[in-house]
């Protein structure tokens, strides 16, 4: 497979249009200064488009489709909560935050508690949340360019990361409302139009789901012979193929393969019959089949022929041109009565699946389409996992630093509420589509399961259309949409993270006497440093699902900024000590739990935990958010004397309608008119 030139052209056009519009809008902003930040001329409609444009990241554009294809119903919580999380923002935060005149969350932290010190503590979470959010954007870049340019994963990340970082560092991409609004409409178009064409070929949303639902014991099958590129052990867990227990599958290894070990697909107790399981029947056409059995028993077959390999055989070398039959084995006790094999590839190779093969790694139809499938029930606490996920996404939406900045461009609190309403309309219209991609992917392109690449489904699915030209064009459109997604979000995050680093950490903590030029230099240096760090982090996360990583960023935001904003806006008694300790303890313990969970997944660390603890580590919001709120309450009550003296005035400024004459803009512009 070579380069998809048409897709490349679309991507370049999209990148060019974004940068070009940015330059145009920046020039225009110089002549009409209210275009850029003052924003009083920005209508609710454009502002809502811009918020939606900045919000729809690689997780929304690619990740949801991939996660849904992989896990079915359970993944629906992601798009639904990404969109409806704005309701909480609307009900409790949007109006007050705008009226308070706070431009960022650290601004709010400082103004609400009269504490520059607390501002510096608050700003650290811009970086924590930001880095978690940039990792999946980087993965999106790697996967997209891997698909259209046929590049290795790291190359896409390095190219996109460097280009966007320099663009931000040299001021080519600022958070310009007009550009972000354009990106929203580009993304909606790119996710919806191709899927309508695909539905006309592969069948509609409901009919494909109905097909899956009507065969509860079925599973996805490959319809025509297909080559699948498999990763080596550096790609763990994407180098693992877990076969179903229903039917044998025959693989052809034209280049041969090195398999680290053969295991059972599920743990079986008692494992009394495991010694007799012969999972693989290998037919070689040349000598050289080698394997190890037990701790020191190694064998090399000098004759071509048919050999059986058993459970726990390891370090297997299969010569080129062999065929391997992977066979389910009987289980004498318990149900189901068979168990499939799990193969772990040690080095990358190509595996050819025959037509009619049942694809590995795909959950069966019933587990896929019904709630509490493999995603939420993997640790055995499906309801707990689901609720924790919902809390993370709903509360996290209300605490995302790069989104809240945008509410400042509303002229007043009332417009902020209207804007949020429109954001929900726009996001809802977008989020209906990614799950359709996931459903069509399962039915029409199931081999993406085999090497764990469902995250590429929106890019790759159009390419299998009979009409190759049409397929290339549609794939070009989705590639351009994906580019818009990680470009806009990564740029937005880079701007807010660099701003935090340069303004708050360098400008206020390290060198409070720094001049404007040296601050500008600090901003550029920060952008480069953060961009490089993001590239480095992006290289490490190839095996994690895009949408899941963004979910973790939300979980950290939910346990840190959300309680700060909620209680800060509505509870007079909140003190800086309460807010700071709740935010730090809730946010940092959630962060620690998630990072530990990722390291466990990658097998970088290993220790035994109970499934309940493991579940709570992977989805920490269900304890992180209440913990943070509880600490804020208790510590605030203990430090009651530190409630700001003008707290009632602050509360009025947060909640009183602008006409009452209290909010900051009115103070700046027309103090004298306050008395009607």
């Amino acid at each position: 497979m070579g380069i998809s030139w048409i897709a490349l052209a679309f991507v370049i056009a999209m990148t060019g249009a974004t940068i070009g519009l940015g330059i145009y809008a920046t020039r225009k902003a110089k002549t009409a200064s209210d275009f850029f930040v003052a924003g009083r001329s920005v209508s609710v409609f454009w502002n809502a488009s811009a918020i939606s444009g900045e919000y729809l990241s690689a997780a929304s554009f690619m990740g949801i489709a991939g996660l849904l294809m992989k896990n079915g119903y359970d993944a629906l919580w992601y798009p639904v909560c990404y969109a409806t999380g704005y309701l909480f923002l609307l009900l409790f935060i949007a109006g007050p935050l705008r009226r308070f005149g706070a431009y960022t969350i650290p601004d709010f932290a400082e103004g609400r508690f009269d504490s520059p010190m607390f501002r510096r503590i608050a700003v650290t979470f811009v970086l924590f949340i930001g880095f978690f959010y940039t990792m999946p954007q980087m993965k999106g870049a790697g996967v997209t360019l891997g698909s259209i340019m046929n590049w290795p994963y790291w190359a896409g990340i390095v190219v996109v990361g460097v280009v966007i970082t320099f663009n931000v560092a040299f001021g080519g991409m600022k958070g310009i409302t007009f550009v972000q609004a354009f990106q929203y409409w580009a993304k909606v178009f790119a996710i919806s139009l191709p899927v309508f064409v695909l539905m006309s070929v592969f069948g509609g949303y409901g009919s494909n789901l109905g097909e899956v639902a009507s065969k509860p014991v079925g599973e996805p099958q490959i319809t025509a012979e297909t080559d699948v590129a498999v990763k080596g052990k550096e790609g763990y867990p994407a180098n693992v193929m877990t076969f179903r227990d229903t039917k044998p599958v025959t693989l052809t290894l034209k280049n041969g393969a090195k398999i680290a070990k053969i295991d059972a697909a599920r743990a079986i107790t008692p494992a009394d019959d495991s010694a007799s399981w012969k999972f693989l029947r290998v037919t070689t056409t040349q000598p050289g089949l080698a394997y190890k059995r037990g701790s020191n028993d190694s064998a090399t077959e000098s004759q071509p022929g048919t050999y059986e390999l058993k459970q726990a055989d390891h370090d297997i070398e299969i010569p080129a041109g062999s065929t391997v039959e992977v066979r389910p084995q009987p289980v004498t006790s318990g149900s189901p009565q068979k168990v499939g094999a799990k193969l772990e590839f040690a080095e990358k190779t190509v595996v050819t699946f025959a037509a009619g093969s049942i694809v590995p790694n795909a959950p069966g139809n019933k587990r896929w389409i019904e709630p509490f499938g493999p995603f939420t029930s993997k640790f055995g606490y499906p309801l707990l996992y689901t609720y924790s996920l919902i809390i993370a996404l709903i509360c996290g939406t209300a605490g995302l630093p790069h989104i809240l900045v945008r509410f400042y461009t509303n002229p007043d609190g009332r417009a902020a509420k209207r804007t949020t309403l429109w954001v929900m309309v726009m996001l809802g219209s977008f989020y209906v589509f990614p799950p359709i991609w996931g459903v069509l992917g399962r039915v029409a392109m199931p081999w993406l399961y085999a090497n764990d690449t469902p995250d590429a489904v929106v890019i790759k699915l159009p390419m299998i259309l009979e009409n190759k030209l049409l397929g290339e064009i549609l794939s070009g459109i989705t590639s351009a949409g994906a580019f818009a997604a990680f470009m806009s979000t990564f740029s937005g995050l880079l701007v807010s993270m660099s701003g935090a680093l340069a303004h708050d950490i360098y400008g206020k903590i390290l060198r409070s006497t720094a001049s404007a030029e040296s601050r500008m230099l600090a901003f550029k240096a920060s952008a480069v440093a953060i961009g490089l760090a993001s590239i480095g982090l992006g290289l490490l996360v190839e095996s994690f699902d895009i949408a899941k990583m963004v979910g973790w960023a939300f979980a950290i935001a939910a346990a840190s900024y959300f309680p700060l904003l909620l209680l800060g806006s509505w509870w007079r008694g909140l003190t800086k000590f309460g807010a700071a300790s709740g935010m730090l303890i809730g946010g940092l313990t959630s962060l620690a739990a998630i990072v530990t969970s990722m390291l466990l997944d990658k097998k970088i660390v290993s220790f035994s935990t109970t499934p309940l603890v493991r579940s709570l580590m992977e989805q920490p919001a269900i304890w992180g958010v209440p913990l943070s709120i509880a600490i804020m309450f208790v510590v605030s009550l203990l430090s009651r004397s530190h409630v700001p003296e003008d707290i009632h005035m602050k509360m009025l400024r947060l909640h009183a309608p602008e006409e009452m004459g209290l909010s900051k803009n009115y103070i700046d512009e027309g103090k004298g008119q306050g008395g009607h």
Partner: protein
Amino acid sequence: MADRTVYDLTEKEHSLLAHRVMRRQAGLSLRVAAVFAVLLLGLPLVNFYMPDLANFSVGGFTATWLFLGVLFYPITVGLSFYFVKKSDQIEAECTDWRSVLDDEAASQEGSV
């Protein structure tokens, strides 16, 4: 007293005003949040305890898929629309801080 601005109020009056404005907005927000929470947090319970209802087939979709993946968006927009309308009404009624303070003073006297 006629040219007294909202900045000249006593701390007690600020407190009364803040109370009054926040109480009605908070009540509205909590009511809408409660409806949303029942829908969103109730669905996993329906899925868990009433799987037959959740997986009932509606035009190919399972009922729970149709509700969550398609219908939930317009429902939330409807809730938001209701909230924005009501919230604007409350604000319109609270804009005149003199009458709000008078009301509040009257109700305080009444309750003592």
